[in-house]
């Protein structure tokens, strides 16, 4: 590629013209994103900060309220802390289980020797199910009254939980849904596992290492960047977790209806609240745009903190996939 050379001593007029041409070319190629960045990212982000200090309900003009939106969200908004606690639960349990399960399924698929292609496709398919459809399916499968899962559980004499209708079972039910759609992690782990140098296994076997020791001392060190990658992106995805908990709560509560119907998110008992739902609840149900922007900024700070973690070791993490 032609390069923009750093300013050199004997810079001729022709060189300057060439540099200008190249700068122009770069700007031209980058222009879609430069506009998109300014209009759909930088401007609204600054505007979000501005609105977080304003009282605005969509009519009239925004009025300055200082930090009142902030104290409202942190001290008086009844949904904020439950949503944050749920997010913590999902990070600790759902993300962990997804990484472990993804690794397990990845290991399994590399060990399967007969019908590998069929197994791989079957394992991968649920990841493709559109989230709303998948959640709808699970709301039916797990419905406590007539759902197939509870029918089977009761048939074999296992006490059947209330799943999406029970505050202490709704997040485990969402976790089950998330484990069902493990295809993305399976593919990443499968690629990583197949990349582990074969000689290392052979050497370990010669040294008499057991299956567990081979996993612990050969497999794990080789794939640890991918494990880290899966954990961090899992956390970032949890910050965006929206359609599944919302739809699950709506369907289970039975108040689901067309446009305009108010639904207090989090059914049952705030147990499925996540931060993105609060932005919707505050902004588009309570028309308190200022407080919605406060939650948006909390979400921004959390996402950026984990993205920073992802980029700090760029060689190891963000480019781990290639």
């Amino acid at each position, binding site marked *: 590629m032609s*390069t923009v050379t750093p300013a050199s001593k004997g810079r001729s007029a022709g060189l300057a013209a060439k540099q200008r041409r190249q*700068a122009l070319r*770069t700007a031209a*190629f*980058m222009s*879609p*994103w430069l506009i*998109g*960045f300014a*209009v*759909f*990212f930088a*401007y609204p*982000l600054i*505007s*979000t900060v501005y609105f977080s200090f304003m009282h605005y309900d969509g009519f009239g003009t925004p009025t300055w309220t200082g930090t009142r939106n902030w104290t409202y969200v942190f001290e008086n908004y009844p949904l904020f802390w439950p949503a944050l606690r749920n997010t913590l639960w999902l990070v600790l349990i759902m993300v962990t289980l997804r990484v472990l399960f993804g690794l397990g*399924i990845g290991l*399994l*698929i590399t060990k*399967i*020797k*007969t019908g590998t292609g069929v*197994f791989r496709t*079957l394992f991968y*398919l*649920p990841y*493709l*199910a559109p*989230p709303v*459809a998948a959640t*709808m*399916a699970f709301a*039916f499968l797990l419905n406590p009254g007539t759902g*197939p899962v509870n029918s089977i559980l009761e048939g074999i004499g296992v006490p059947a939980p209330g799943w999406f209708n029970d505050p202490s079972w709704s997040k485990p039910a969402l976790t089950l849904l998330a484990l069902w759609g493990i295809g993305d992690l399976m*593919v990443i782990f499968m*690629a990583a596992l197949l990349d582990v140098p074969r000689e290392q296994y052979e050497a370990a076997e010669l040294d008499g290492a057991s299956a567990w020791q081979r996993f612990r001392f050969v497999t794990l060190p080789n794939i640890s960047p*991918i494990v880290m*990658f899966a954990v961090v992106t899992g956390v*970032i995805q949890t910050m*965006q977790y*929206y*359609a599944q908990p919302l*739809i699950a709560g709506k*369907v289970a509560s039975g108040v689901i*209806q067309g*446009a*305009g119907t108010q639904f207090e998110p989090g059914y049952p008992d705030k147990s499925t609240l996540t931060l993105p739902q609060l*932005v*919707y609840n505050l*902004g*588009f149900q309570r028309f308190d745009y200022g407080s919605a922007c406060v939650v*948006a900024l909390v979400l*921004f700070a959390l*996402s950026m903190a984990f*993205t920073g973690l992802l980029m700090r070791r760029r060689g190891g993490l*963000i*480019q*781990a*996939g*290639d």
Partner: protein
Amino acid sequence: MTQVLAKPVESKAPASPAERTARRRAVLEWVGIHSLGVAAALFFTLPFVFVFLTSLMSGSQALSRDLVPRTWEWGNYAAVFDTPGFLTWWRNTLLYAGAGTVLTVVSSIPVAYALAKFRFRGRDLSLMLVISMMMLPPQVVVIPMYLFWAKQLDLSGTLWPLIIPMAFGDAFSIFLLRQFLTTIPNEYLDAARVDGCGDLRTLLRVVLPMAKPGIAAVALFQFFYAWNDYFGPQIYASENPGAWTLSYGLESFKGAHHTDWNLTMAATVLVMAPVILVFFFAQKAFVEGVTLTGVKG
């Protein structure tokens, strides 16, 4: 399977005890691994099976604990298509996914190419910003964006606020394409320049043909993203049922057919089926894309 079954026959000749235990262990391992595989396969497929079976039950049977339809009601699918609005949701979804995908691909390619192959000041910063945008939940900037589209441009109740931004590059697509384009050796680009190609011609004639798998992956991800998007249509289209997409409409379908699990499941199947069909036609590109970035669209 046949291989393993054949083994005991071959080994009729007396084998040493050590050999025999090793062989027995291999067979046991095969059986263990594949039993686990079958168990996992059941976990992944049974939900589809139950949903499909329920979609073919009569309304009253869907409310019972039966797992298999007594009569196969294929008419349920016709009933779903007859639901007012369902075909409109299909059309809207295809418009959103189709137009969005084309715009995204066209606008993201030059940016990804610049980030992969040009050297300029601010390139690393730009890449970092692209990654940050990719990781950001859409809810972070939704309030000002909504006010912008609804109050200033009066476009709420349509899908345009979701489609137009895709003409300005999508962070995830830029990142994925950039990852792909960096793998193209510079020698090809140099050769093109020696042959007198300008930058645009090099991109169109030399780079794009080589980048087809990457472009296919981006197009697929973007198509699925639009197909699956719930939050976007909820914000901008909810007030106008004429602009709903399948993912958004499916929810209200459940509302209108409160107790008709059979019809709701038939609609669910109809929302899932196209994505799965597209996947079977483009499996390779898709899996490549997942391994390339490891981040979902």
